[in-house]
């Protein structure tokens, strides 16, 4: 037997959400677009930043009194490591360029030698051919 409940609380909740969401959204979007909202948001942010600044300064003073490193000091050490890594990275880059350059030069030298080799071969062939032409097949008697 299939039973149905006259009132399903979840369905009611979902229906209310679906029906009111669009209307609420329009009203909220209107409010969000107003200059007074931007102004209020800016003021809230300023208040929060003032509080945050107070907390940061208090924490730093406390840490300094107890000879403990502050967040800024720990970050400075990290920056030194990062700077060192940047130098290694730049050295690696230069080494790679040098490697690329020397590979290019070696390849260029190889091409030049190979071309010289071919020229020498053709000169040798020409000399041999010339010798064959000038040397008679049967030696002549004087």
């Amino acid at each position: 037997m299939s039973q149905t409940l006259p009132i399903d609380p979840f369905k009611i909740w979902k229906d209310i959400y679906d029906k009111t969401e669009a209307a609420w959204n329009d009203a909220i979007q209107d409010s969000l677009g107003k200059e007074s909202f931007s102004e209020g948001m800016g003021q809230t942010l300023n208040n929060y930043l003032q509080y945050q600044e107070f907390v940061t300064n208090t924490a730093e003073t406390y840490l300094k009194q107890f000879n403990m490193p502050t967040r800024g000091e720990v970050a400075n050490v990290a920056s030194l490591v990062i700077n060192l890594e940047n130098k290694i990275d730049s050295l690696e880059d230069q080494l790679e360029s040098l490697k690329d350059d020397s590979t290019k030069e070696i390849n260029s030298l190889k091409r030049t030698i190979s071309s010289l080799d071919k020229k020498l071969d053709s000169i040798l062939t020409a000399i041999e051919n010339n010798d064959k032409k000038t040397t008679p097949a049967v030696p002549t008697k004087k």
Partner: protein
Amino acid sequence: MIYSSMKEVESWVDKMPDEYKSSYNRFKRMTEVLTNEPEPLVGQTPKEVIWTKNKTKLYRYQPAVKKTNKVPLLMVYALINKPYILDLAPGNSLIEHLTNQGHDVYLLDWGTPGYEDRHNKLEDYIMDYIPRAAKKVLQTSDAKEFSMLGYCMGGTMTSIFAALHPELPIRNLIFMTSPFDFSDAGHYTNWLDKRHFNLDKLVDTMGNIPHEMIDFGNKLLNPIPNFYGPYMSLADRADNEGFVEGWKLMQKWLKDGIPFPGEAYRQWIRDFYQENKLINDKLYVRGHQVKLSNIKANILNIAASRDNIAAPKQVEPLNDKVSSKSKAFHLLETGHVSVAVGRKAINETFPLVDKWLRDHSK
């Protein structure tokens, strides 16, 4: 004790009508998801780290899979949130899809900045990190040209990089929901107005801008659907395991943000949202003028119609500025995040990017 009372409640619920039982089971499942269940695994496509600098890592994906497209693709993500949204889960990952299709995919992961990185500027990332990553991509793939894909703010950074380096062999540029014109950035234009928003005080006090602050601003753009909508959807569909898995993945990513490096944030808000310098050729990076007209690579510019972080009207103007011979603007009926994950992304975005890249890499 609790266990036995739960058993009693359940035996009582069993006697109730079906509709009520179903509501109770959904509520029970929702409670489990919100309280007991471990976080889902993300970023599962096999990858190797080929370069690191500070917290940044350059990944190459599925190096063992044969690369049929010889033009590698470098992905650049935004400085907020984590880039695994591009590799969320098997079957729901742009990176997995592209690598399976034979593309050689690399991703620049900025990592999580610490307090020591609060002085990092946008130009540090654009002029020091991206060029080195591009060089590594070309070396590793042994290619003569490469393509880039920038998502959200990563696309804006990519456009600046491409405009400043016309000498580099950039063949293709894909932008996914990246804002370029900030003349009307919706509510942000009012909220970040210089008269009300104390930018310098914020950066000087906070150092890095906490993710929660940026996330709150993004959610406030559309508060009811963003703050309550996800829980309403979960309560409504908690009996659908497929939906629950997707919901958990998305919530993990949304909450897993990273701080925005302070100085970069100051530039991002001032030069882009407050003064709209990029599209008007007024942006200077380390003294070099950024002219988008220097870009000559093929362009695919993707916008999402329901995007209120990078609205289509902020995305499209790029195409009028660049000098590329081949440039396409593509509007998808989706949102800022669902352009990269979910059913719509799997059926439309992934094949679109794959085909366009293949056609423009021959």
